[in-house]
């Protein structure tokens, strides 16, 4: 199925984001500019997949992808590389905020 790679990235990462954002919405909304910067850096970092594919470090089963490549990188990879730093950054900010709150007590 052409959507396999897209769905296998999108569904787990969005579920993870929902879990992370569940109890920290006001804080993470305040930190949205940070998360957008992280997502953008992730998209830039996604370009590194081009040499990885070229050197054959890993390869995709192309019939399971949308088949759209931008700068030699699958479109789905950019989506994954935008969302994952946001999820990691959200978790780190949330945990750090809890730690700071405990320290202040």
């Amino acid at each position, binding site marked *: 199925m052409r959507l396999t790679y897209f769905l296998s990235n999108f569904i787990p990462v969005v579920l993870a984001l929902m879990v992370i954002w569940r109890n920290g919405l006001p804080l993470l909304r305040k930190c949205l500019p940070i998360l957008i910067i992280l997502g953008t850096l992730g998209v830039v970092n996604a370009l590194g997949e081009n040499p990885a594919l070229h050197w*054959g*470090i890993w390869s995709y*089963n192309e019939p399971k992808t949308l088949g759209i490549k931008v700068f030699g990188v699958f479109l789905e990879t950019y989506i994954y590389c935008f969302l994952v730093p946001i999820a*990691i950054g*959200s978790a780190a900010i949330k945990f*750090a905020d809890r730690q700071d709150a405990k320290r202040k007590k």
Partner: protein
Amino acid sequence: MNHYTYLGWLFALAILPSLLVWAFKWRQLIVYRKVFLYCFMGSVLFATPWDYWATHSWLWHFSPDRTVNVHFLGLPLEEYVFFISYTFLYASLALVLRNRYINGGDK
């Protein structure tokens, strides 16, 4: 190209940038070592079954010629380095940016 190609790729794209962030901001970041530990645990627990499924259902495939060929729970060792190094990079950047954004600079 050899068995260390994937590790070299990880070093260039995730480990080296993380080390650069830590070289300049380690005082700010070291106090959050527990935060990093929780993030590492979360990313490995979350990503391992997902990556296992994707690898074993042939969504993607790792070349045995470009990896060190050490496997753990059905995944190449480099995949765990991938989870941890990227988590390290993005968590470090998030905490540095948070400090700048919320506290207006260095502590």
